[in-house]
């Protein structure tokens, strides 16, 4: 019985300690009150003074408009967390964060998360840190996997109704680390006609990219096999034994920087937004290009969006140009890397595949090629699943008793 008493007193002791720790945290936490209007006054206490200075310098016309925008960040890992922090510090109106993962110590080679957050959900840990950095940003978090049937409709609803005014978000940023999730975002955005940025870092950590996708106007993520920035590493010397993926805080930080820079340009309407920007870390090579949609894209919503764009395109010269193949001369001061757009009619180096349709720049290729036609007569001859008159229930039962 004494042990019971001991336990009780030990619990009381620990509760005390917990209260003390919580108080300590609370004292550290509230740093500033919300600020109702962005001021350009240059004083030490104004967190927006250096951002509003962009107006006086003539870079941005309307910086304070940033507070009206909502951005969804899908994937709050090495790229997504830094992206969310940059947008928070820039004073974005609202962030919607999606991720199903937890913070782990294995993430500590990346930026943003801290060891004491291990075990917390990434969205929860991120929202906590971000709202202490800037309480003016509205945070909405969803801790689930967007690719499953149960969550996908909710994901679509938040994209189409999650803005500050209850409408579609202004931009979706894909910061996920796998093909399945990218395709899920692509599916959602093609259906909704939602503009989004795809981003990625290669599994060997030495290349990355961002890609603006406007359904119907540019190539969607499913228009061709995934694009990769050539790393110029001999495949034979690339060791994969015993590991799935490497990562570097540098590459991820750079890609997040590119992503948010182009997000700001897109939202606030300054500078030129890159349609595709690649990064080869070993050579510091940055290919850029525009990607045309594939008229034979497998996604019917992409094809529908392409038709809709084609119908309204000619009214706008930029659209006409995009429709005509996007080959307006982008003249660079110098071109020491010999970057040029590949003419669609020119014989391509890639043997086959939809990648050619897109007009890829040198240094970027598709991860693999696809057969020109989906039906392969020889393979089709292989036994197809029979169309027997059995019900699904019967098949399920048969499988169980096999």
């Amino acid at each position, binding site marked *: 019985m004494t042990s019971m008493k001991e336990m009780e007193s030990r619990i009381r002791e620990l509760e005390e300690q917990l209260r003390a720790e919580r108080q300590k945290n609370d004292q550290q936490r509230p740093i500033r009150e919300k600020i109702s209007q962005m001021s350009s006054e240059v004083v030490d206490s104004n967190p927006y003074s250096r951002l509003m200075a962009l107006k006086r310098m003539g870079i941005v016309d309307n910086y304070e408009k940033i507070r009206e925008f909502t951005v969804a960040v899908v994937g709050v890992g090495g790229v997504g967390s830094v992206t969310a922090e940059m947008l928070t510090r820039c004073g974005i109106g609202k962030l919607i964060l999606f991720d199903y993962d937890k913070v782990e110590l294995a993430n500590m080679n990346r930026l943003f998360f801290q060891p004491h957050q291990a075990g917390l959900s990434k969205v929860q840990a991120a929202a906590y840190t971000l709202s202490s950095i800037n309480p003016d940003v509205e945070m909405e978090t969803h801790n689930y*996997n967007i690719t499953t049937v149960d969550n996908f409709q909710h994901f679509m609803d938040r994209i189409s109704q999650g803005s500050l005014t209850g409408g579609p978000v202004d931009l979706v940023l894909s910061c996920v680390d796998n093909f399945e999730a990218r395709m899920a975002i692509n599916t959602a955005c093609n259906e909704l006609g939602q503009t989004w940025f795809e981003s990625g870092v290669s599994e060997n950590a030495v290349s990355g990219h961002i890609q603006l996708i406007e359904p119907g106007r540019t190539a969607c993520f499913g228009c061709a096999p995934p694009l990769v920035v050539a790393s110029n590493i001999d495949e034979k010397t690339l060791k994969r034994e015993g590991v799935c993926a490497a990562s570097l805080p540098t590459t991820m930080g750079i890609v997040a920087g590119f992503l948010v820079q182009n997000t700001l340009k897109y939202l606030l309407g300054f500078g030129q937004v890159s349609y595709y920007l690649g990064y080869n870390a070993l050579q510091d090579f940055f290919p850029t290009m525009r990607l045309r949609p594939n008229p034979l894209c497998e996604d019917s919503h992409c094809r529908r969006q392409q038709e809709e764009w084609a119908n309204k395109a000619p009214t706008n010269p930029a659209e006409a140009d995009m429709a005509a193949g996007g080959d307006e001369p982008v003249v660079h001061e110098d071109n020491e890397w010999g970057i040029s757009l590949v003419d669609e009619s020119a014989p391509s180096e890639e043997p086959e595949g939809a990648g050619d349709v897109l007009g890829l720049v040198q240094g970027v290729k598709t991860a693999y090629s696809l057969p020109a036609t989906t039906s392969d007569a020889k393979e089709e001859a292989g036994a197809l699943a*029979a169309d027997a008159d059995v019900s699904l229930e019967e098949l399920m039962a048969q499988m169980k008793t096999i």
Partner: protein
Amino acid sequence: MVDEATKKTLSGIPLCKTKAGPRDKDLWVQRLKEEYQCLIKYVQNNKSADNDWFRLESNKEGTRWFGKCWYVHNLLKYEFDVEFDIPITYPTTAPEIALPELDGKTAKMYRGGKICLTDHFKPLWARNVPKFGIGHAMALGLGPWLAVEIPDMIEKGIVTYKEKDG
């Protein structure tokens, strides 16, 4: 790219025809029937080749799959739980097969125990949409993964033999 044995296994698994994912209502039911027919045939093939190595079943919507797989090493049978969800992008993207009990025990896994597939798997899958189904994912993905990783984990003492209870 794919070894002869795997090729032979693959050729024995019927192909699916219906390109439909879990959001496609009636078409998905059709696809599910094809999936079950393929799996039944594949398991029957395995049994007659004395190489029975997995059982799978799904919830009634066919969106969540679970079962067991086993691997024989030095005459001992090692058994593992298998599970995966069918993503809404299926069959354009393959299911991500997971062995949750091995999560954190090998570097050849992503979080949640999802197995890390070779560079060949995704291109091969992409070239065979919508013909490849769950059976093909098992044959091309999990089968070769077990053959490489399990002996290695047994050798390192990460996986140990468990007597079957009862």
